[in-house]
C-alpha cells in the first residue's frame, strides 16, 4: 500500500495525535511516537472532498492486531470498530472517495475526477484553461477596453458626493510621465492623460487631483533622478499640489544613490520648513529614513503590504469556504501596527484588487485600478529582450528600459499584464461599485491613488 497523504487522515487518542500511514477498508496502519495500549478509543478525522472539510469519527474499541517497534516510533496495525451501521457506512464512503481521488492523482487527472464524481456541494467552477488561449489583438487593444469600461460607467453624482470626503492623487511612475510632468506641469499633464481615455471629470475624476505620487514601487531602474524630481516638485509647489515620493525595494549597490536622493529631499524640506511623504517598500529604506532624515515621513508601500492578489482566486478549490479569511493580513495585528508606528509609519498603501479588505484603524490610501501580483528583482522583460528568454535572468545594470516599448500580454479573461519587472492586474470595481468605495471610506481610506499605467 502507498503511504496516505498526511493531510487526508489524522487520528487522536486523547490528546496524542497520530499519523495514519494507510487505510485498507477497516484496517488502519498508524505511526505513533508513544506506545499505545490495546483496545483504545480514537477520534479519526478524514478529509471530505465534497465539503472541503474533515469528517469526524468517534471510534471505540479499536483493536491492535500487529505492533512493530522501530528505533524511534511504533507502527500499529489496527482494526476499527463502529458503534452503528450509519457510522460504518459514512466511514466507508469517505474512505472510498479518498482512495479514488488519490488513485486519480497518481494517474495525473485528479481534478477531472473530482469534477466527474460531482462532489461539489456548491456551484464551484474549475479553472477554464481553454480561456488561456484567448488574447486581445494587442495589449493596446486590451488596455483601451479596460479604460472604456471605466468611461462608460459614470455614477457622477454618487461619486461627487463620495469624493468630497477624500483626497485624489495621480501616480507619476515612469520616465515618460516624469518627462511630461517636468516639462508641462502637473494639472496640464493630468488633464491630457485623462482626456486620452475620455475619463476627465467623469465619476471619480470629477474631483480635482490635489496630490501626486512620484517614483516607482517595483523597479530601481525606473526611479527619477533628483534633478527630475526637483523640476516636478517646483511645478507642484507652484500649483499647490502635495507630493509623495515613491521608492521600490533597495538593492545593496544602490544604497548610496538612494541616500543621495533622500539627502537632497530632506535638505529641501528643511529649507522650506515642510515634511515630505516617502513611500517605502524595503525595511532598509525605512531604516535609512528614520535614522538620518527627520523631515521625511515614511509610508508603508504595497510591496510590504502583502496579501494574496490573484485574478484566478474565484476558481481556487476551497476558496469560497475560506474567502472571509483573506480579508486580513499582518496589518490587522495591533502589535505590528504599533511597531510600525514606533518607526514613524502611520499610513499604509492598499490596493483595489476585486476582493474585500479589512482596513486597520487609521488613515490609509487605496491604489487603483492597477494592483501588483508579482515582481522580480531580475527583470523578465529585460531577460526576454536581451537573452530571448524570460528565464535567462540577470540584474539589469544599465537598463535601456525595454519596458517602455514591450510588455507581456496575458490571456484576456485574466485582466493582467507583465509590465517591467512586475505582473500587474487591472480591477475596475472601484469605478463600477460606489458602495465599495463608500465602505472603504467608512473604514479609513482617505486617499485614492490613481495610476494610468
Amino acid at each position, binding site marked *: 500500500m502507498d503511504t496516505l497523504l498526511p493531510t487526508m487522515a489524522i487520528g487522536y487518542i486523547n490528546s496524542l495525535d*497520530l499519523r495514519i500511514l494507510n487505510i485498507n477498508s477497516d484496517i488502519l496502519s498508524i505511526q*505513533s*511516537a508513544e506506545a499505545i495500549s490495546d483496545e483504545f478509543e480514537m477520534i479519526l478525522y478524514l478529509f471530505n472532498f465534497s465539503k472541503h472539510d474533515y469528517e469526524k469519527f468517534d471510534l471505540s474499541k479499536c483493536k491492535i492486531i500487529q505492533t512493530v517497534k522501530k528505533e524511534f516510533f511504533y507502527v500499529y496495525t489496527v482494526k476499527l470498530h463502529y458503534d452503528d451501521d450509519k457510522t460504518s457506512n459514512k466511514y466507508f464512503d469517505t474512505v472510498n472517495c479518498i482512495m479514488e481521488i488519490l488513485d486519480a492523482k497518481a494517474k495525473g487527472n485528479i481534478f477531472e475526477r473530482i469534477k466527474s464524481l460531482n462532489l461539489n456541494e456548491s456551484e464551484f467552477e474549475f479553472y477554464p484553461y481553454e480561456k488561456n488561449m484567448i488574447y486581445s489583438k494587442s495589449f493596446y487593444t486590451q488596455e483601451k477596453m479596460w479604460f472604456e469600461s471605466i468611461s462608460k460607467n459614470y455614477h457622477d453624482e454618487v461619486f461627487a458626493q463620495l469624493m468630497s470626503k477624500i483626497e485624489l492623487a495621480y501616480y507619476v511612475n515612469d520616465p515618460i510621465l516624469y518627462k511630461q510632468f517636468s516639462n508641462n506641469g502637473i494639472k496640464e499633464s493630468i488633464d491630457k492623460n485623462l482626456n486620452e481615455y475620455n475619463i476627465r471629470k467623469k465619476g471619480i475624476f470629477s474631483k480635482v487631483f490635489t496630490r501626486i505620487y512620484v517614483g516607482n514601487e517595483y523597479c530601481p531602474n525606473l526611479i527619477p533622478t533628483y534633478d527630475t524630481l526637483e523640476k516636478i516638485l517646483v511645478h507642484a509647489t507652484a500649483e499647490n499640489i502635495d507630493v509623495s515620493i515613491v521608492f521600490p525595494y533597495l538593492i545593496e549597490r544602490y544604497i548610496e544613490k538612494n541616500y543621495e536622493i533622500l539627502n537632497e529631499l530632506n535638505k529641501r524640506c528643511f529649507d522650506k520648513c515642510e515634511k515630505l511623504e516617502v513611500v517605502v517598500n524595503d525595511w*532598509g529604506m525605512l531604516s535609512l529614513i528614520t535614522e538620518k532624515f527627520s523631515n521625511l515621513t515614511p509610508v508603508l508601500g504595497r510591496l510590504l503590504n502583502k496579501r494574496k492578489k490573484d485574478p484566478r482566486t474565484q476558481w481556487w478549490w476551497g476558496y469560497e469556504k475560506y474567502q472571509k479569511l483573506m480579508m486580513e493580513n499582518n496589518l490587522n495585528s495591533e502589535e505590528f501596527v504599533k511597531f510600525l508606528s514606533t518607526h514613524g509609519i502611520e499610513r499604509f498603501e492598499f490596493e483595489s484588487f476585486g476582493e474585500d479588505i479589512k482596513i486597520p484603524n487609521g488613515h490609509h490610501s487605496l491604489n487603483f485600478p492597477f494592483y501588483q501580483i508579482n515582481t522580480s528583482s531580475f527583470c523578465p522583460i529585460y531577460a526576454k529582450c536581451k537573452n530571448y528568454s524570460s528565464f535567462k535572468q540577470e540584474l539589469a545594470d544599465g537598463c535601456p528600459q525595454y519596458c517602455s516599448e514591450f510588455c507581456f500580454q496575458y490571456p484576456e479573461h485574466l485582466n493582467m499584464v507583465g509590465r517591467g519587472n512586475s505582473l500587474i492586474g487591472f480591477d475596475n470595481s472601484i469605478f463600477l461599485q460606489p458602495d465599495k468605495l463608500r465602505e472603504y471610506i467608512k473604514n479609513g481610506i482617505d486617499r485614492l491613488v490613481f495610476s494610468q499605467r
Partner: protein
Amino acid sequence: MKIVTPLTSVECFEPLVEAGADEFFCGVIPFEWLKEYSVIMPINRREYLLTHTNMCCMSSMKIISRMAEKYKIPVKITLNAHYYMGNQYDILLEYIKKLMDIGYDNFIVGDLALINYVRQKGIKCKIHISGEVGVVNSMAMKFINQFDISRYVFPRKITLDDMKSCITNNQMKGMEYEAFILNSFCPFSGEFCNSIHCDDIGPTCKIPFRVSREKQTVNRFQDIDSLFTMMTRAEEKARLYNNRVHTSNPNSYKFAESGCGICRVKDLVDIGVTHLKVVGRGFLLENLINDVQNMKEIINMAIETEDSDRFCKEVKDKFLDGLCPNLCYYPSKLTR
C-alpha cells in the same frame, strides 16, 4: 559549508542524513490549523493539500526530534508565510512553544509581524530570516538585527557582489548566512509573490503570455521587435497542442535542471555564506538523495580548488556535461 535539506516525512530523515545532509528544514501544519484555515490561509509557503509537503501532527515532530538528537542534525521549522491574520499570532505562539517543548528551537520566519510578536512575548527561540522577507541590503539587516536574528537566508535573486557587501557591512559576529543553490528557480521573486500556489491552479509565473508592444510610436528596438513577432507565431502554434498550465512531467529528473548555482559554490564559500539551501519539499526522496550527494561532492571540490574559474569549469564538466541548465541562480561572477 553546510547543506540545508528539505524534510517532508519521518522516513526521509535517515536516508538524507546518509546522503550528507547537515541540516533540515520542514513545515508542520497542525490539524487544528488545517481544520480552521486549510491551506487557503497557509502556515508556510507550501500551500498544498494534495501533495506531501508538510507534516501534520506533533507525533511526527516528536519522532523527528529523537532522530535529530541521535544524529546531531538540527531541524528548523518553516513559518515563512508572508503574513498571518491578526488573531493567528497567538495560535502561532502556542505552536512555537509546543515545538520548543519537544526540542525545536530554530524557526525560519517570513513575516516581520510574527518575529516582532514572538520577541515581544519573550520567546528566546532562534530565528532565521526567510528569503521571503527579501533582505537584499545591509541597511535592512541592520534594521532587522534588533530582533536578535541568528541567520539571514538571502532570497534567490541577489548578485554575489551584493551578497558579499551585505555580509561585510552587516558586521554581526557569529551571524550565519544561507543562500539558495539548487532547484525551483522562479521567474519572479518569492518575497514579492502574491500569486496563489495551490493543488489545482499553477502559479502566475506559469500562465502563458506573449510579448506585445506598449502604445508607443517610437520603436527603438526594431530587431528585437521583429524577432518577437516570429517567436509569438511559433509559440502560439506550440500552444495549440498543449493548452494546460502544467506541462512538466513531475516524474522526470535531471540534476540541477530546475534551478542551479553549483558553479558559484566556491565564490559563496569565499564571501562568507555558511549554508547552502537545496529546495525540494514534496520532491521524490531518490532525487533529493542524489541532489545532496552531488552537493556534498561539489562543496569538497570547492574547498580543495584554489581557483574559482577552474572550479566553475570542473563542476560544470562533471555534473552538467559542460552545459549549463537555463535556470541560473547566479549568472554574474563575483568581482574579485
